[in-house]
């Protein structure tokens, strides 16, 4: 390899990636399938071998950054985690048997299982783009928890497969050593990393190369033992995660390096795949069926057994129907040691591209999919579970329905109580029931998209409906369900506001504009009235103290 050849390959990689990314951005789709497609485009004109070493850095940084952001010991939601474990195991075992049944070898069948069972954190949560991550809704929290389980399981699989299934693998001792490395990383985080960060005295550059050095160190240990570098990179991420959230610039520095290597990795991966033949397409079809049909079905069944209602289970399922980037890592490791055939690898990459693009569509249209399924009687309604959790009498009337019990909704409920009227809160989080009850308000545990919620909340006999969440689809739903009742709603922007007014809302406000009006007042008086700033400051602090008491 010569320097010019490498620079030539990198130039092709980034030009192709940049062009396709602009397209992805326009369509609002995640970047990874476009990186892979860019790789398939430039594959014929570059020699991907030149990039393999840089691509391995891509893997290392991908896993490293994931580990830095995850704290597996505190992010656990027990019931959702159980769903994740059952889903991964069931889908995995089923697909493994399907693989053996259609005549695949054991390792190929295992990869088929991995591609079907694991879904992608980066694609599902939009971590690689800057889409908002808002796991406030139950099904999103469920999907996120399952993703974390998937990722951890994927790393476990990489550890085990790398240690026992590849040629020249170290065997069971390798697994034990890998676990030892991970444990060592956790110890390091406790005793070493804080000290290093302190010694760097806030110098971002030094913190950055320290993190890179830790990554190199752990990867070198992994290589010395003979296990996958993914395990080393994950351990390195665990070793630094404690101090990072406090230092934006250091996280940003790592992010910038990651953003360089990740396109290199995914484009190289795409470039290793070539034009598929019929058998490859057939295999890709089988993998796709596993990813976009079997996996969501298993997720829905499992989530329902765990007590989630049909709606939440279905919506979570629509978010988990794509191939995980970690599965791609397993695939490329297997390809590099010659453990799988290139044609099988191509089928895997194709399935990944298709499923990632499709899944962007299904998670945006989850609600429509759910309604379609209910209409055909495939999944049921959730009236029973909504009624069970709610505290509203069957004949409630002349009440004021408040949608959403966040900081905005809370103050609206207070205003209603001050006026001596009865409020009924609609909010999907059952944990709020007690707090709502304390304010003398009724409570409906459901989402506005669900028909059951409205059956219980009785909008037709209400005096007024106030939507305290500025979420356009939910507000459209609120206005549609209001019937003759007046609606006061929030909108994120002017266009949404006027469309809601046209749809029949009585009054629409933009929350930031509401708040801005008050802020303008404070600014004006601070700048023109002597002593106003001090009074304002005192009042603000006192109000915060009041919040604490509650």
């Amino acid at each position, binding site marked *: 390899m010569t320097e010019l050849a490498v620079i030539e390959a990198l*130039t092709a990689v980034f030009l192709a990636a940049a062009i396709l990314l602009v397209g992805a951005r326009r369509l609002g789709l995640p970047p990874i399938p476009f990186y892979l497609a860019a790789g398939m485009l430039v594959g014929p004109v570059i020699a991907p071998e030149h990039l393999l070493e840089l691509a391995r850095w891509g893997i290392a940084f991908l896993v490293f950054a994931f580990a830095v952001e995850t704290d597996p010991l505190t992010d656990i939601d027990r019931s959702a985690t159980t769903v994740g474990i059952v889903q991964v195991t069931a889908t995995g075992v089923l697909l493994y048997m399907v693989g053996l049944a259609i005549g695949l070898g054991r390792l190929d069948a295992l990869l088929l299982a991995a591609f079907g069972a694991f879904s992608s954190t980066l694609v599902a949560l939009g971590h690689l783009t800057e889409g908002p991550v808002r796991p406030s809704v139950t099904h999103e929290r469920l999907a996120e928890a399952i993703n974390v389980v998937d990722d951890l399981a994927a790393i476990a699989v990489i550890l085990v497969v790398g240690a026992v299934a590849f040629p020249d693998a170290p065997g069971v001792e390798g697994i034990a050593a890998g676990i030892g490395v991970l444990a060592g990383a956790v110890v390091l985080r406790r005793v070493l990393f804080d000290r290093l960060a302190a010694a760097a005295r806030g110098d971002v550059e030094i913190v950055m190369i320290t993190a890179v050095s830790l990554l190199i160190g752990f990867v070198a240990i992994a*290589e010395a033992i003979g296990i996958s570098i993914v395990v080393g990179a994950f351990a390195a991420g665990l070793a630094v995660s404690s101090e990072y959230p406090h230092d934006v610039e250091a996280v940003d520095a790592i992010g910038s390096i990651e953003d360089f290597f990740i396109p290199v990795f995914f484009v190289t991966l795409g470039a290793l795949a070539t034009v598929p033949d019929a058998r490859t397409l057939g295999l890709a079809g089988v993998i796709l069926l596993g990813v976009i049909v079997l996996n969501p079905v298993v997720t829905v069944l499992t989530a329902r057994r765990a007590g989630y209602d049909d709606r939440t289970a279905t919506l979570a399922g629509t978010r988990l129907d794509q191939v995980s980037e970690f599965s791609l890592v397993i695939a490329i490791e297997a390809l590099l040691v010659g453990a799988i055939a290139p044609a099988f690898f191509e089928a895997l990459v194709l399935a990944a591209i298709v499923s990632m693009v499709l899944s962007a569509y299904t998670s945006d249209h989850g609600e429509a999919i759910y309604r379609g399924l209910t209409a055909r009687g495939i999944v049921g309604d959730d009236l029973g579970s909504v009624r069970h959790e709610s505290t509203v009498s069957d004949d409630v009337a002349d009440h004021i329905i408040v949608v959403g019990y966040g900081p905005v909704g809370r103050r609206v409920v207070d205003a209603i109580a001050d006026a001596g009227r009865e409020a009924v809160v609609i909010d999907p989080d059952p944990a709020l029931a007690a707090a709502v009850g304390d304010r003398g308000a009724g409570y409906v545990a459901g989402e506005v998209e669900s028909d059951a919620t409205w059956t219980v909340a009785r909008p037709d006999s209400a005096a007024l409906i106030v939507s305290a969440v500025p979420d356009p689809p939910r507000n459209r739903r609120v206005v549609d369900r209001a019937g003759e009742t007046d609606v006061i709603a929030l909108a994120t922007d002017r266009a949404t506001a006027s469309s809601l007014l046209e749809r029949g809302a*009585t009054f629409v406000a933009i929350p930031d*504009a509401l708040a801005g009006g008050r802020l303008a007042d404070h600014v004006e008086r601070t700048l023109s009235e002597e002593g106003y*700033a001090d009074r304002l400051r005192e009042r603000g602090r006192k109000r915060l103290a009041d919040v604490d008491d509650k």
Partner: protein
Amino acid sequence: MSPEAIALASDFAIVVVTATALAYVARRTGQPTLVAYILTGIVLGPVVLGVVTEDDLIGVMAELGLGFLLFLLGLEMRFDRIKGIVRPVINVAAGQTVLQTALAFGVAYALGFRGMDVIVIALATVFGATPVIVKLLADQGDLDSLPGRIDVGVLIVQDIYLVIVLALVGAGLAGGAVEIGTDVARIFGLMAAIGAASYLSYRSFLPWLLGAVADDRTVLFVIGLAWAFAFIYAAERLELSVEVGAFIAGLGLAQLPYSTELKERMEPLTDLFLVVFFSSIGLGLAADHLAAYWVEALVACAVMMVGNFLIMLYLIDREGFSAETSFIGSVNMVQVSEFSLVVGALAVAQDLVDEPILGYLSLMALVTMTLSTYVILTNRALYERARPLLDRIGVGGDVDADLPGYEGHAVVVGYDDLVRTAMPPIREHFEQVVVVERSTAGMDELADSDVAFVYGDAKHGDVRTDADVSEAALLVSVARPTSVNRHLLADLPDDAKAFVAAVDPVEARDLYEGGTDYVILREPLAGTALGEHVRRYLADPESYRERSPGSIGRIERGEPS
């Protein structure tokens, strides 16, 4: 394609880990990290341990480090930064380049060098190391002072000169006058062609392209990288240096409002590759090379540091700046530029000189960079000491030009509906209002008003400097995440008023502890206002309904009626 062939724990890994260890030592002793990186190469290379050789991966990374550094320098060539002092800066830079080259030539000749050695030494001994000066001045918050701006301006002009020198040395400086003339013409022709491509892109599709993706920093970054690689590759193909291509690529993007943001994204990656680059210089040295001319190098260091300081002092003073500006502006520039090593390494690669000459230049760079760190860190104290002497010899004029910049102004960080609604009183009370925002929507909206716009993320120091936060009288910030606000509050003068948004009560309390005058909790504010609407409705639904058929104008003001 066996796993051994692509082992990650390569020489590259050893270089980075060693550099990290030495960087901590450097940090403890107050040295620039750059010295630690050069030392890394010397320790690992044949001079001391001999455990690492320059393999291909190291070569690529070093090349990219240098390419990206020049891309960054190109990106930094924001003409508005030095507007107002352009003429004096060009005078100083031109004079300094000529005089210091002459001095370097004279010193080298006096020390006994002859022939091509003297020419390369004279061309390569350029004073003023951009990374050293910029990093230390930024740490001290002096980058925006008048001496700081003069230094940055001179460094920028010097970079253009260096690109030409690099191109000349890269082409081998070979042949007679005619051939050199043809070479120079060819170089200038190709540079002009690449420059024209860059400029035409800047005039045509680049603003549109970057504007379309600027909301997503990952996409912006990938496009920036693609842009840099395209020019680096073109330059390589045309047998110009990588450096020239990268520099011109940066220039094409520099005048766009996204350049500061892009530069901040590129910096960590560049830092990482530069570690390899600076180490690779050390890797290429042998012990006898470094020591070959150690006496000469030390003598040259002493003479050149003093000589260059005097040259700069004379030149800046001649432009009529004050004694303090002249002194500090010149005392900052007493180290050999890192490009001396680039020029030297290139000259060795072209067989113009032997490795001992590179050893001589490296030793000079090591010594002057190390010493100058202390000089820059203590420049004000040094000035106080030197003041009586400066007075006696009559240094000091009175033109300390009015800097283009903001003072006593309002800084608004983030531009959304909340801020938009609160803008009228701010604009009424302040002549200068600067909005810092990393999406482009606000830029279009504010384009026609008298509100200044800084594109970028306020977590980056350069962006805060662009907005002159340290001179502001009012700060209204809705920036995320919290730590950005901590940076902003730290930069803000004590007597300024601060309105800062928090997401929850815990953060709000921290902000009050940190001296914020008013913490904006947007949801409670909005909730209180919305509750007011509900109260009005409940009091008299009929009249509320009648008066409320929602006019958008009212929505914007968030008023009931």
